[in-house]
């Protein structure tokens, strides 16, 4: 008999008991899933993006279904960090004690807002194992481009927050110009990268000639984006040495395994949580089976292990 493989990974200082994380915005603040499974079995959860002040988000409709995916334009609706901590802090502290890491996502419209949010988390959220800087939400800005759309802009945000927290900072990247932006973020001291965020897309109701969402474009996620996500994780892994959290269309252990082989240290389950709330623990189990099947004693042996 082979002994159980070790599944623990280190995402830039966030020590996860296993590689399975949840994608921000698809897992609420965690407790929504406790009725479905014991959330603490996961390596980490990433909470919905919060900003210093509350945000309303976008009008309805915020979701449209497309082939093998969905599009969303939630627009980072959130109650603000203060209210978030009041409502969910106790649950999240407990979750952390149960051994699951808690990554809190930081949202902002401007460098100043990011800095304030990072500081607020530092002040109010002792349960946070790390912060995820969302510089890539396609649904918030006026012009359509996210704060971190260029290497220069991404670097600026990272530089501004780097001095303000001792927590590990993961940066959530947009699905474009991955190598350039990844390098810029590493240079500014990012502890880890997470990618991909949703891909800007458009769905038109051809009868009414209007967007099927309240905004012209919205973010595509789900199985349709998976092969693109695998490519982007691979691109990032080739140019940086900080760890990567792979995200995009993961619905099975094999999908997670692909991201790990492409270079991901951890893998977040996103849209799949919404469709089947027990997806994350199922995927974790399938991933363990695969690690065993590969004859590895430690999942870390498989990170970036694709042969090209």
């Amino acid at each position, binding site marked *: 008999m082979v002994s159980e493989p070790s599944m623990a990974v280190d995402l830039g200082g966030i020590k996860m008991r296993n590689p399975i994380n949840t994608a921000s915005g698809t897992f609420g603040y965690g407790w929504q899933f406790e009725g479905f499974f014991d959330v603490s079995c996961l390596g980490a959860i990433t909470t919905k993006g919060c900003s210093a002040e509350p945000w309303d988000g976008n009008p309805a409709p*915020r979701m449209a279904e497309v082939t093998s995916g*969905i599009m969303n334009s939630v627009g980072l609706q959130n109650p603000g960090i203060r209210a978030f901590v009041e409502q969910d802090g106790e649950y999240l502290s407990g979750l952390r004690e149960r051994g699951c890491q808690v990554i809190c996502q930081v949202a902002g419209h401007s460098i100043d807002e990011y800095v304030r949010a990072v500081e607020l988390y530092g002040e109010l959220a002792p349960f946070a194992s790390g912060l995820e800087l969302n510089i890539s939400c396609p649904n918030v800005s006026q012009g359509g481009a996210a704060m971190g759309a260029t290497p220069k802009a991404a670097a600026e945000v990272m530089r501004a927050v780097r001095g303000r927290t001792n927590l590990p900072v993961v940066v959530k990247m947009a699905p474009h110009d991955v190598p350039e932006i990844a390098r810029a973020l590493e240079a500014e001291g990012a502890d880890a990268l997470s990618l991909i965020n949703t891909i800007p897309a458009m769905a038109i109701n051809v009868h009414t000639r209007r967007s099927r969402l309240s905004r012209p474009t919205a973010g595509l996620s789900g199985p349709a984006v998976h092969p693109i996500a695998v490519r982007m994780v691979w691109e990032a892994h080739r140019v940086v040495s900080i760890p990567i959290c792979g995200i995009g269309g993961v619905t099975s252990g094999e999908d997670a395994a692909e991201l790990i082989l492409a270079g991901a240290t951890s893998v977040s389950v996103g849209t799949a949580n919404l469709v089947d709330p027990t997806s994350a623990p199922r995927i974790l189990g399938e991933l363990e089976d695969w690690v065993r099947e590969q004859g590895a004693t430690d999942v870390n042996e498989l990170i970036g292990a694709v042969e090209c």
Partner: protein
Amino acid sequence: MVMHAPGLAPILSPGQFVNVAVPGDPSHITRIPLSFAGTDPKAQTIEIVYAVVGEGTARLSRMGEGDASTVLGPCGKGWRLDDVSGPALLVAGGVGAPPVLAAARGLLARGIPFDVVLGAQTAGKLWGVGLAKSLGAGRVVVTTDDGTAGIKGFTTVAVEQMQGERDYADVLTCGPQPMMAGVARLALADGSSCQVSMERMMTCGFGACNTCNVAMAAGGYKACCTDGPVFDAREVAW
């Protein structure tokens, strides 16, 4: 459609909904939120009435006896029937009929008198007239957009007439948003309380994704799937 859902049937309350995965096409990944008209706790079944409007409901309509799937529920907060003193006016448009008749069942159980307005585009799409009567509605008034049954016109026409004839303490409504907006306006103007059951595009159905937002009169949004689908008409920004 009758669905066997052990465990779920006894705990569903009127106005709540279930989120149903319809098998057969993995390229469509989302579930379909559906209200129910009634449950049979003994047989552990749920009765669902739905309209085929797109690919998912079309697939649902092709499911046959014995076909299995998964369902999430109970979802949402149902009608606040304990706040209803009666007499109540229940107004349904289209596939709003099932949750409205589920409310009727609850009022019947509580001994609260009620009338029902059932609207549809056309006679063939009407559902629930007989059921409404059998649930003890004082009056059942029908409207159709094309006049093929009952009053020709929208449900609001019937509501205005009936308000002239009886004093309703409460109005409960479910249907297309413009219809509910009209009914709510009439109800509030008449001094009735008004509960509305809203419909939104939903992804999860259990409060995890913020895609089912309902704009509030006080600003901001609430989640249709967990704060609703039933809201106080005064809360909602119409």
